[in-house]
């Protein structure tokens, strides 16, 4: 009796699985789960925004001054303490300080912060400024002021050459 009950349960799961699996992302969605970006055209001091998994990703080519400012911040001052180095390391553990790659979604309630385009306000810390509730991020994308709890998220990325980065 237990055996037939167990077998029926296995049968029920086997029947249900294709229906549930059907709702998983399809091949075309999965194909866009990684993108490759050629960063050659981004001049020093410039930033671009690319779409990855439906969200904006900011790629900023940092100036020497922006890098120095980011490294000089004591961790005790940070709401979400992270070293600048840890935020510019790719999945092959190589550090490229001039490239900051962050997901452009404010960690407060999800607006897209300003600071990528020429002429955008960047807030007091030279990074990004979120117009929705006033969160301000520094040149490493870390939260310094305002209601956001966490730093701008850093996606997994890998520089396959000096000018080609694979995100995701």
């Amino acid at each position, binding site marked *: 009796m237990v055996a037939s009950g167990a077998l029926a349960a296995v049968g029920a799961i086997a029947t249900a699985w*294709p*229906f549930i*699996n*059907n*709702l*998983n*992302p*399809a*091949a*075309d969605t999965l194909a866009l789960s990684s993108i490759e970006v050629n960063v050659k055209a981004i001049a020093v001091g410039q930033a671009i925004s690319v779409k990855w998994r439906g969200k904006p990703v900011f790629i900023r080519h940092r100036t020497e001054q922006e890098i120095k400012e980011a490294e000089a911040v004591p961790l005790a001052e940070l709401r979400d303490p992270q070293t600048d180095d840890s935020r510019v390391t790719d999945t092959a553990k190589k550090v490229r300080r001039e490239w900051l790659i962050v997901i452009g979604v404010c960690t407060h309630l999800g607006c897209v912060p300003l600071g990528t385009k020429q002429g955008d306000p960047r807030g007091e810390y030279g990074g990004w400024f979120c117009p929705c509730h006033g969160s301000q991020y520094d040149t490493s994308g870390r939260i310094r002021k305002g209601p956001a709890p966490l730093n701008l998220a850093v996606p997994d990325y890998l520089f396959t050459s000096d000018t080609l980065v694979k995100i995701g």
Partner: protein
Amino acid sequence: MASQHGAQPVFNNKVIAWIDHRLPIFSYIEKEYHTFPTPRNFNYFWNFGAIATVMLLLMIATGVVLAMNYQPNSELAFASVERIMRDVPSGWLLRYMHMTGASFFFAAVYVHIFRGLYYGSYKAPRELLWILGVVILLLMMATAFLGYVLPWGQMSFWGATVITNLFSAIPVVGDSIVTWLWGGFAVDNPTLNRFFALHYLLPFIIVGVVALHVVALHVHGSNNPLGIDPKGPQDTVPFHPYYTMKDGFGVVCFLIVYAIFVFFLPNALGEPVNYVPANPMVTPNEIVPEWYLLPFYAILRAVPDKLGGVICMFGAIAVLFVLPWLDTSRVRSCTFRPVYKWFVFLLVADVLILGVCGAHPPEGWYVPISRICAIYYFFHFLVLLPILGKIERPLPLPPSIADAVLSKKA
């Protein structure tokens, strides 16, 4: 648990008792699907109602998930079906299940109808039960027709064109009706979009009519192969476990055959030309519906007049509605109707031959054969049944079901 006639079952579980006192679902299940007295002499023909229900639920489940990826737009539909087949996880399986499921749903319903015809299940007091069944058949045919248009292949498009054009046979208002159905001047995107909406809607209406069908059945209980009413508890067994288990077994056997087609022969019952995207400029060599609509298609084409063909095709289903009143025999089951039973087999052969005719172009021998078979179909219902019921001498009926069942063992 045993319950006397009229007494409410007592539930030991407090939660169940609380719910049942307010909404008696558990009492209902206990009465209608557990202790319900069911004739003890069912044969496997009686499984097919349950099988048909399982297929209906399967079609709805696969249909809903397919609709999550299908695009009901003439520019996108065909490609969306191919995307489901190739890119969507388990999409190929769900699509083949839905496609094959339609055929097996009809197969089960046709066997279920045969049982009704042979054993006289349509006779008093089950006339309304039978009529509800014919309504279900009509809704199924409409749903299947609408669904076949959705992949927007050549046969989808041209089948839609042919069947919607039928309505132009109606005098005076025919052409206006067709334009109204199309939402335009030909089968096109507006037609596809509304067909999708209706194809999603109709199965839920079928569920409602099936519910009425089952409620109607439970008023007087099931018929049985002998066609005589149960006279007491010795003639019946409780539905559970006897028929829950027998139906369960039958459903599994049916699903095995179904699975063979889904996994090994998924396109055997279909038309290859429907894998060609719809082209309004080119008609395929032959336009044929799916196999389950072929006999009606044959009747349509057998009549040389356009309006006559439409009337006869719908008439073939209309006669089923009045069947309980056409059959004048006092005896239900063909087991005891030694003459009529051969005509029932002849009707089955007739319908099968009509099906074969429907699959071929109306040329050569197929023309006179489909005409003779169409004439026999109407003769069978409108002439033979009323007359034979009065002049046939039935075999003597056994005194009770128990007598008949037990005497076989001797």
